[in-house]
């Protein structure tokens, strides 16, 4: 866990974001079946210029290595987009990417 790929592109005031995170996203039942520890993101937040632009509370029923796509307004080329991910074990991962 911990790896993430982020792509952010601004065009006409709208920033399109594609983000992929590495996680098995296994809830209790699935983890038992696979004989691993439950591990999934519970909370994903993205900020640009100190403002929250994306906010999702997630569960283990999202697919493995979740891929998210969304768009937002209020940022321009060169601004930084910052992701904060929290998993069910309380582990926090962050990742930054400049908007192209």
């Amino acid at each position, binding site marked *: 866990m911990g790896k993430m790929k982020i792509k952010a592109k601004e065009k006409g005031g709208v920033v399109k974001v594609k983000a992929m995170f590495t996680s098995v996203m296994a809830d209790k039942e699935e983890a038992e079946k696979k004989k691993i520890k439950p591990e999934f993101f519970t909370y994903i937040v993205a900020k640009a210029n100190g403002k929250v632009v*994306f*906010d999702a*509370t997630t*569960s283990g029923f999202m697919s493995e290595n979740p891929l998210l796509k969304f768009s937002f307004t*209020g940022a321009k080329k060169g601004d930084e987009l910052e992701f904060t991910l929290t998993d069910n074990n309380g582990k926090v991962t962050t990742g930054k990417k400049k908007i192209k």
Partner: protein
Amino acid sequence: MERRKFLNLGLVAAAAVLAPMTNLYAVNFRETKPDAWKAEKSPEAIKAMFGDAPLKKTDKIKFVAPKLAENGGSIPITLKTDLDIETIALFQDANPRAATVVFSVPEGQKVDYSFRIKMRQTALVTIVAKAKDGTLYTTGKEIDVSIGGCGG
């Protein structure tokens, strides 16, 4: 007496205005609505998340999903709408618990989300969105899942 009533009304109104304002940014629904994540079926989860208010069916929320998903482990979903939405959530009846993902839409942003979910079996997927004015909108679709991956 009249004046007191009026003052009370004012207080209630102020509280009603203030409460949503504090919720504008970053709401971790796992902390604020823990019961919704334990519910096994969609109706219970929706009730725990959004309360008892009636759900209004709408076609203004674009909910794109395959009718037949060959791989239940990765079903692409797209949600898009121009309505002023505060919270939008996805529930399904295929997994041990219904709540799958809840987006809290930041101020000034529109709903435009794509992601993938897991489903163990064919089931109804329900989208519930809470508008800024408090109206609850809903839309849903049954997604066929063939776990074997043979397309049948």
